[in-house]
């Protein structure tokens, strides 16, 4: 149920991103004399300090915002697989070394690092922003994938493959990867949410490309022009709310993946209260059900 809401929300937002630029009623950068007006028939989301149409900015900005998020998440997930799987599968210096690298990157705070790096590259394009975010945010996924690889490594079918002398690339693809897919997809979705938050944070601070429209740049201008001081809620509410909704939808989809994979949580959702839980635990021999 939750998953359906999540996926539905994502589909809607992606459609907005794709169709947006073609449907936008105005050019988002065109200023006009209709300054700081609330929502109206002519301007669905109102206007900015320069008389620009907020709705058009929102529609045009949707695509780049999502694109950077997916690009960064793609890069981060790829790196996290490349580092996470070997660090879990191989013991010894290789495994320990890769784990150490992951832990170091995990602990370094990402936003300050990104601020410094992007600060040296003023007005960078989105591709660069996505690349840099991807290169610094892979560590969490790597750790999760490593834990899952460790757990899979000792399963019977992997042991059997190793015993019969399969080469490790084959083991990787045939035996480990199927078990890793839930973890990888959950990690990817989390990464998208994180990347979008980070990207908008950086743009809010003025580090993105200010001449291109994204939701983050919109929020930069609201801060710059003190929209909240003037009470222009129509300007800053839509982009922020949309970002929050994307994050929420991704979290809901992740929730769903989690529930399907975690048997205990699955049981929990179907039951009401603890008493019923305990009442079911009579041993099978006495006529009760086994806890599956």
């Amino acid at each position: 149920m939750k998953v359906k809401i999540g996926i539905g929300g994502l589909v809607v937002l992606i459609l907005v991103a794709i169709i947006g630029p073609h449907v936008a009623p105005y050019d988002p950068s065109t200023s006009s004399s209709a300054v700081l007006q609330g929502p109206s028939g002519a301007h669905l989301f109102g206007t900015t300090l320069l008389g620009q149409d907020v709705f058009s900015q929102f529609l045009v900005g949707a695509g780049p915002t999502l694109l950077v998020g997916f690009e960064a998440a793609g890069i981060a997930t790829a790196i996290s697989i490349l580092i996470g799987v070997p660090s879990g599968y191989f013991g010894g210096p290789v495994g320990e070394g890769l784990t150490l690298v992951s832990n170091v990157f995990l602990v370094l705070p990402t936003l300050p690092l990104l601020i410094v790096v992007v600060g040296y590259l003023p007005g960078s394009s989105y591709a660069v922003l996505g690349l840099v975010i991807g290169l610094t945010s892979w560590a969490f996924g790597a750790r999760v994938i490593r834990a899952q690889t460790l757990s899979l490594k000792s399963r019977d079918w992997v042991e059997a493959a190793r015993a019969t002398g399969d080469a490790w690339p084959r083991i990787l693809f045939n035996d480990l990867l199927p078990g890793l897919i839930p973890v990888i997809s959950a990690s990817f979705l989390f990464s998208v949410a994180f990347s979008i938050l980070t990207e908008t944070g950086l743009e809010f601070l003025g580090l993105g490309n200010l001449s291109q429209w994204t939701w983050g740049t919109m929020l930069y201008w609201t801060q710059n022009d003190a929209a909240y001081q003037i009470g222009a809620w129509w300007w800053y509410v839509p982009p922020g709310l949309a970002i929050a909704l994307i994050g929420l939808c991704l979290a809901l989809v992740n929730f769903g993946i989690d529930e399907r994979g975690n048997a205990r949580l699955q049981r929990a959702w179907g039951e009401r209260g603890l008493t019923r839980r305990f009442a079911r635990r009579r041993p099978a021999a006495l006529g009760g059900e086994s806890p599956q």
Partner: protein
Amino acid sequence: MRAVGRKLGFYLVTTWAAITVNFAIPRLMPGNAVDGFLGRIGGRLSGRALKALTVTLGANTHKSLFSQYLSYLDSIAHFRFGTSLTYFPESVSTVIGQSLPWTLVLVGVSTIIAFVVGTVLGVLAGWRHGHKLDEVLTPFGAFISSMPYFWFGLIVVAVFAIDLGWFPSYGGYDPTQTIGFNGAFLSSAFTHAVLPATTIVVTAMGAWLVGMRNMMVNTIGEDYITIARAKGLSGSAVMWRYAARNALLPNVAGFALSLGFVVAGAILTEVVFSYPGIGDVLYQAIANRDYPLMQAVFLIITLAVLAANLIADIAYVWLDPRARQGGRA
């Protein structure tokens, strides 16, 4: 004790990595960013100040990279970070020294409150999973942890400071007060801190709420909970002393990881509220492309996060006896 030793070793390695990354970044960046900066500020500096800058940014010297690195390490050890362009002619260390306490107090207090509130709510939601409380709290937790931190800050300012006028909308204290341990200053500092702190607390507590709730649900299935109930212990006794205590452990471990998020949230919140902490200093530095200040702030923030992580890890080892022998928990 071995476990603590390993942790310390790891944090030493990470500290070295952070310092080295800080050294490497300006030297790896393309273009004339560094030369441009030295051009803007070099004319006004002389002697030691200019030398300190060159050591930090590394432009135009004829020394080998390795000897540059050694001078860099030496100046870090003596807290010589150079002169700031934004706050000229203040040295970077002075600027950081003035703003860091504000951030430490704000972030420290907010994080503790967020952790406690989030964890308690997570315990309640997890214990009564499937019930109304859980159905409300968990999506709420998921939503607030997906919100952009600064956006929530903007809304808080708009509603509580501008519209309702309950709290001041910017600054750390009333400028007409003299700084010091007097009542008037402290109370103005407090009222100025309420809104930023609330922003950080609300945005940070979501993750702990949801995490704790999931761990509670997992823990409830354990046999020792069943035994405790069978022995006749009251619901709340089992909930707090058995389930919550054990479910708490991964949250403490996760505390260290969440610090990165909290720091990011704090930086953005300080910008929204113009709160005179280190996040606001960083923002000014970005606007002016003030590289020595930017890098010094990055280093300080990173080292602070590492220190907090170390404390959290030691606390974890102290809380969980299984971790003490150096084994995997």
